[in-house]
């Protein structure tokens, strides 16, 4: 049985963080990409809260709370941009948005 030590929390947070990066890069669905970013923030929060307990100081928890606020503010921008994008192209596939591609002509 694994002891619920400091390191096991960190390991869990790291795995969640990596899963977030994996989702960000390998998925095409805009919503899932966004949720992957949120997952990474959650993983970092978990680390912060763990550190807060480890150090016996509230700093970690306070930062974690403010990170949630930052995540909320990013969420607003994200979702309004997603709406704008969906209105324009009727697609949630991020690879469809490539109008800025470098043209190879001189």
């Amino acid at each position, binding site marked *: 049985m694994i002891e619920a030590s400091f390191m096991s929390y960190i390991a869990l947070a790291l795995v969640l*963080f990596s899963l977030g990066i994996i989702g*960000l890069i390998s998925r095409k669905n805009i919503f899932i*990409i966004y949720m992957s*970013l949120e997952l*990474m*923030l959650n993983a*970092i929060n978990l*680390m*912060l809260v763990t*550190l807060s307990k480890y*150090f016996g*100081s509230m*700093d*970690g928890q306070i*930062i974690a709370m*403010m*990170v949630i606020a*930052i995540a909320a*503010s*990013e969420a607003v*921008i*994200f979702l309004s*941009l*997603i709406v*704008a*994008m969906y209105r*324009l*192209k009727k697609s949630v596939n991020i690879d469809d*948005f*490539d*109008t*800025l591609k*470098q*043209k190879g*002509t*001189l």
Partner: protein
Amino acid sequence: MKYDDIIYLLPLLSVGIGAIVLMMLSPIKSFSINRLSWVAFSFLIIALLSNTLNFGMVYSVTPFSGIFSSMIVVDTFAGYFSSIIIAGGIVTVWVGTHYFEKSNMLRGEVFSLLLFSVFGMILLVESRELFTTFIALEIASISLYSLIGFQKTNIRRVEGSFRYLILGSFAGIMFLLGIVLIYAGTRSTNMIDIAKYLTTHSSQDMTLVMAGGTLILITFLFKIAAFPFQNWSMDVYESAPLPITAFMASTFKVAIFGFILRFVLIDFHELKNIWSDILFYIAILTMLYGSFLAVFQTSLKRMLAASSIVHTGYLLIAFVSINSLGESASTSIIFYLIAYFLSSMGAFGMLSYIASDDHLRVTYEDFRGFSHVRPYMAAMMSIFMLSLAGIPSTIGFIGKFYIFVGAIESGYTSLAVIGILATFISVYYYFKLIALMYFYPSPEMKGEIPPLKGIPPLVIALMAVLIIWGGIGNTLISYFPGIDFLIDTAKLAYQSLFM
């Protein structure tokens, strides 16, 4: 409680209040665009003037240290950088007024968001606590995301904004992880405490701090568009409205450097040589990548975006040599930032000024024979190009000179050689524009280009004059401030970091 501390916070407060006032004014329809820009301008100029109150002194104050628990510091360094940032805001306001009017997308919110962005950047250079820095970065970035995607019916704008948002958030998350690691390693997020911890515990294992610092460095490299974190910049610079591109390319870069210099010089003073090897290669790759990208562009906007990657490379040269020559390398970075700020802000500003109702003039071909239609504008544009290319007697040359000499002095001769090579390549794509403007007959376009009238061209012309002034030095009239003045102030700024 000391109420006179409020003087030091005046720039920050003035910009912040200005942003909120503009937000409230923007729904009022009777308030014309011109009036809004005057409001924005007056708040910015108050901020700039209050910055000059302490000019020329070495000072370092932590205003309201009890309330804010020393998380914010106002020193010569912050004053220097925030002055540049506010100046960038002022230029963007004036140039932007004209552009947004023309492209029919101006609303008061633009100015509000712009001032919020300036607010975030000032907080970024003044903050001495890593998490506050992160929030400041987010304030600046989120305003920029909104400004880029402002015209939401334009697919390019929205797409660029979204790409920047995803990648910027990703980079922001790395920054956050870096803060967490440093916090885990030192139990503090305050830069002074971290520096103290690092000097007193130098025998201990520093893997956490190193890893955290590296992650923060990656965010920094992302924001200044260094290889391999540079791809976004081309797309975002191209998609953004021109004044916003100007603001991002020059002012934001200044702010980011303001933060990272403080971070590296204070926190990693003892350990900053750990990155020198990898930054060495990054500087080379950045310069090469940018040069390769810039030479074949047809769009001027893209070329300037690509060349801004090259300029990042030059700045990184000085950044590499920072561990052997702290003061002079930082000074040369600061000086080069000013040089680059003036030149690129001028070039982008000119581009956005000549945008007309139905035609954005952003490709090389649009400038064919330009000098015959608008000779003064062509002359200014040439000055900006000459300065970007680093031709002697412009400020850009002196900036490059300092960087290359510093690189050679600290033993990075190969970096200097590659930098000079990149400069030579850059002459090709900058002079292509000059050649097109001067050596071709002009098509019929006189009616479309706005004449030199109003404040925007005045601002642009002022920058052109400053470029020449900085290049020839304090020299023609010796008691007038010139580059020596700038460099001396930059040195004071450096010294104020260690007070």
